[in-house]
Structure formats: C-alpha cells, structure tokens
C-alpha cells in the first residue's frame, strides 16, 4: 500500500473560549476541546467523506488540514509535508462552505487570484494578466461558466458562485481537494448537479478528496469511504472518528446509482453509524 497522501495522527484541537465579561468584569477563559485524538489516513486517489452532527468539529478538522489552524497536539501531513506548506505549494486546495469570492474582482480575476498572488511581479497585474487568460478560460470551461467570465460575482446565483470557487481551487492544479460542506447552502437540484460535476472532476483529474458534509446520501453517493465523527463520553470532550462505512460501489457513478438497492443499503449503514455516534454522547 502506498503511503497516505493525507495523514492525521492523534490530532487534537483545543480552543480558548472567552465568556463575555459583564460591566464589572468576571469573564472567564475556558478551554474547549473540539477535536481529540483524531486519526485518519487518506490514500492517493481516494474520496473520503467526513460526516457528523453540526458542531462536532468537522470544519476544525478541515481547517487543520488546510493549515488555517494549528493543531494543539498530534501529527498532520499532506503530500508528505506540513499542511501549511502543502497548501502554499499549491498541492492542496480548499473550498469553503461559502464561495468566499472577492466582490470587486470579475469572475475571471477571482479564478486567477491564486496565480496573481504567486506572480513575482503581481503589482504590474494589468500588464501581466494577459498570459494567464488562457488558463482562466480553461478553468471556467471545466465548470461551464466561460460565458460569465466578466461578470461580478454578485450577479451570479449561489450555485454558480460556488462553481467559481471550485474553478479557483483548481487553478494551481492541486492533488488534494478539501471541501467543507460546499453545497450545503444550495437547493437540491443544484446540489445534485454539483455532485455530478465534482465526480466528473474527481475522475478526470485523479484527485484525492476529503469532503465534509452532514448529508449521508451525499457522502455515500460521492465517496469510497465515509467516516463518522462523534463526541466521546461527555459533551465536554472533543470529537473523533467513531464509525466508518466502506462504500464499495462501482465508478464512474451516475445519477442512476441513486435508484440502486446497493446505494440504499450503504445509506442505511451510514444512518445507523451516525445514530450510534450520537448515542455515544
């Protein structure tokens, strides 16, 4: 077996949480263990989903892997280097719950932002951007938005904005894609279509994907493996992985899979695992 491309070993994250102070003082600092002893290995080319109830620390796990937060304890590696370096070297890319586009840049400029920030003469951008336009066109074609390249993001629908965010995440040609409930705010029709587009990208580009969601069906439909997060014995202790469901359904997957009995079986397993995870609390 090849070494894992995403490696989390006994990772923990504790936040300092301040209680608001009254007029006369008396506020206290509390330590809140959000994630405790979280271990997860993802193989190259694997599609792994993380599910769990709201507030169980899914986003924190993803932020640790994206290098946005530093772990309080444990060892993390992405592409055989610290998460922060993997992200900065363009090997690993993140897509957030919200598109997080810059309102003052056109769709095209938003997609080129990662390249612009890497350009050694970025301050001369108006003269430099020409050489990147080809790339922007390619990326926008992969998410079917090439007709909208000169629009401001605000003019696009929520689903289209999230597709721009996907295009931006692919700009540096990453090997690993981290997605944090990217389609959570979308209607079901759009969400289904986005799932298929994500699968298409995953299969075409040989990506490794870690996908955070709270939808069991979405997780089963997309993934090779679904890990279920839940809290330990007391609500004060943080979450770690409590169950795992292997989804050995064939690829490439199409919308037809969602009518398949084998699909329903895995969803049932996932639901049972999630229920057990919650009962542990």
């Amino acid at each position: 077996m090849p070494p894992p491309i995403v490696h989390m070993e006994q990772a923990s994250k504790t936040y300092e949480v301040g209680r608001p102070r009254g007029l006369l003082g008396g506020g206290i600092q509390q330590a809140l263990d959000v994630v405790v002893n979280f271990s997860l290995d993802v193989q190259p080319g694997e599609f792994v989903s993380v599910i769990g109830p709201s507030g169980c620390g899914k986003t924190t796990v993803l932020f640790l892997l994206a290098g946005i937060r530093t772990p309080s304890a444990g060892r993390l590696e992405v592409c055989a280097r610290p998460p922060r370096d993997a992200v900065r070297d363009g090997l690993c890319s993140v897509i957030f719950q919200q598109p997080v586009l810059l309102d003052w840049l056109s769709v095209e400029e938003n997609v080129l932002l990662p390249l612009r920030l890497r350009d050694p003469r970025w301050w001369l951008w108006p003269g430099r951007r020409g050489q990147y336009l080809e790339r922007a066109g390619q990326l926008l074609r992969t998410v079917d938005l090439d007709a909208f390249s000169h629009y401001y993001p605000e003019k696009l629908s929520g689903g289209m904005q999230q597709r721009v965010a996907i295009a931006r995440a692919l700009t540096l040609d990453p090997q690993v894609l981290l997605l944090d409930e990217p389609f959570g705010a979308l209607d079901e029709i759009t969400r289904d279509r986005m799932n298929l587009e994500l699968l298409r990208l995953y299969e075409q580009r040989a990506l490794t994907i870690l996908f955070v969601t709270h939808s069991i069906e979405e997780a089963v439909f997309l993934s090779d493996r679904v890990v279920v997060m839940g809290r330990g014995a007391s609500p004060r202790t943080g979450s770690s992985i409590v169950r795992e469901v292997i989804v050995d359904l064939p690829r490439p997957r199409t919308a037809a899979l969602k009518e398949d009995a084998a699909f329903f079986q895995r969803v049932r397993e996932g639901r049972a695992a999630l229920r057990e995870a919650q009962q542990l609390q």
Partner: protein
Amino acid sequence: MVQDTAHSAPPVHAVPRRTPFADLGSWTAFAAFVIVAWEIGSRVYNQPYLLPAPSQIITALREDAPLVLYYAGITTQETVLGFVAGSALALLGAMLFVWLPRALENFLYRAVVTLNSTPFVALASLVVVWFGLGITSKVVIAGLYTFFAVLYHAHKEFISVDPMREYLMDVYNASWLQRMLLLKLPSALPIIFTSLKGGVMAAVNGAIVGELFGAFEGLGYMILDSRYVGNTVRVFLAAVFCTMIGWVLLGIVTVAERLLLPWHVSMARERP
C-alpha cells in the same frame, strides 16, 4: 439531466449606461429651486442687511469679481492641498496602524485620539503661529480636519475584513502588501469613500477656520473683513463660494467613487 442555463450564453441585451454624471441635472434643478426660494423669501422678508437676496449677491459679485474669484482660488487651493495630503496621510496612517505590533498600534491610536480631542480652534491658532499667515498654515489645518475624518474609518475597516477572506489569503500565502492592496483596501473602499466625502467638507471648513485666524487673502479673510464693516452681502457672497467649492469637490469624489466601486451594492440601480 436538468437543463443548465449556464451552458448557453447569458441572455444579455443592451441597456443605456448610467454615466457618473447622472446626478448633474437633479443638482442643477435643486440649486435653481434654492435660489428662487431664497430670492422670493428675502424680498418678502425685506431686511437686506440680515438676509440679502441672491440678486444683490450677484450684483456684489459683479462689482469686484476679480478679487472674489482670486480669494476663492486661494481657498480652493488650500482646501484641495489639505484634503489630498490629509486623506493620503490618513490612509497611510491606517495602514501603518495595522502593520505595527498591537502595543505600538494602541499607543499611536491613543496619541491620535488625544490630538483629536484638543479643541480644533486652539489647534488652528497654534498652527497659524507655527506656520505663519501664508497658505501653508491653512493647508495644514484643512489637512488635519480631513485626516481625522478619514483615519478612524479606514483603520476600523482594515481590521474588520471578513475572516474567511483573510483565511483565503492565508491559504494562497499572500504577503502583507498583497493582503493590504488586494483584500483590505478594496473591501474598505466603500466606507473610505463615505469618510472622504465627510473629509472634503471638513477640509473646506479647516481652510476657512485657518483664514479666520490670520490671513491676508481667501474667503475666510473676506468673511471677517466684510463683517467688520457691516457688509453682510459680501459675507453671503463668500459663504456661497465656500458652498460651491464644497459641492464641486464633493462631486469629484462622488464621480471617483462611481468609477471605482461599480461592484458595490450601494451602486445598484434598484434598491430593496
């Protein structure tokens, strides 16, 4: 599969573009309304010493137009120089604040607040003592007025950027300058423009206050001088010119705002 509207080109049709000068007509109409109402009001009131009519003011302007225009030129010069220097320093200052370590930032912020709570009139008379009766002291005072009008807003906006966007900049390894120029400055720009509009008016104020404290020329000098000899018409004439300077400069800032912020929600044709 569901038909995706995004696969085809968006349905676009030409719409007349709104020029940055779209408001010029309504402003002219407003000015005409004010002048007519003022003329009628002062004729009915009939106390030319207290409230001269616009026609009297125009007559006074005809009598010594060269001098008044020269004074207006001086005041405009002071205002513009003070505004440009004051707002540039305020923006640079706000950037410096977020660049400095927290303790130094707090220290400097307190220094600025202290200076700002000193009565401006006291500050202005000192500036005239320090920089003399010429144009420099008025530029400094106008600059100070603008500086304080802009600094607080710019600083607050620079530290209030959406954290997710800051994370995005983390992820793409943006340098301090990239973060400032590509994220913090553009997201602060709408509020900065609002404060610049206040700043331009404050600059006119500052220039006039400076002239009141000691000058041999300018509209503020004209106000003081005319009041001594009881020539209210000329006081009004100077005040009208001050207003016009404010209007024109405000107009320039507004046009710049429209050109620079086409993406902002406040520029939308329709409002909720």
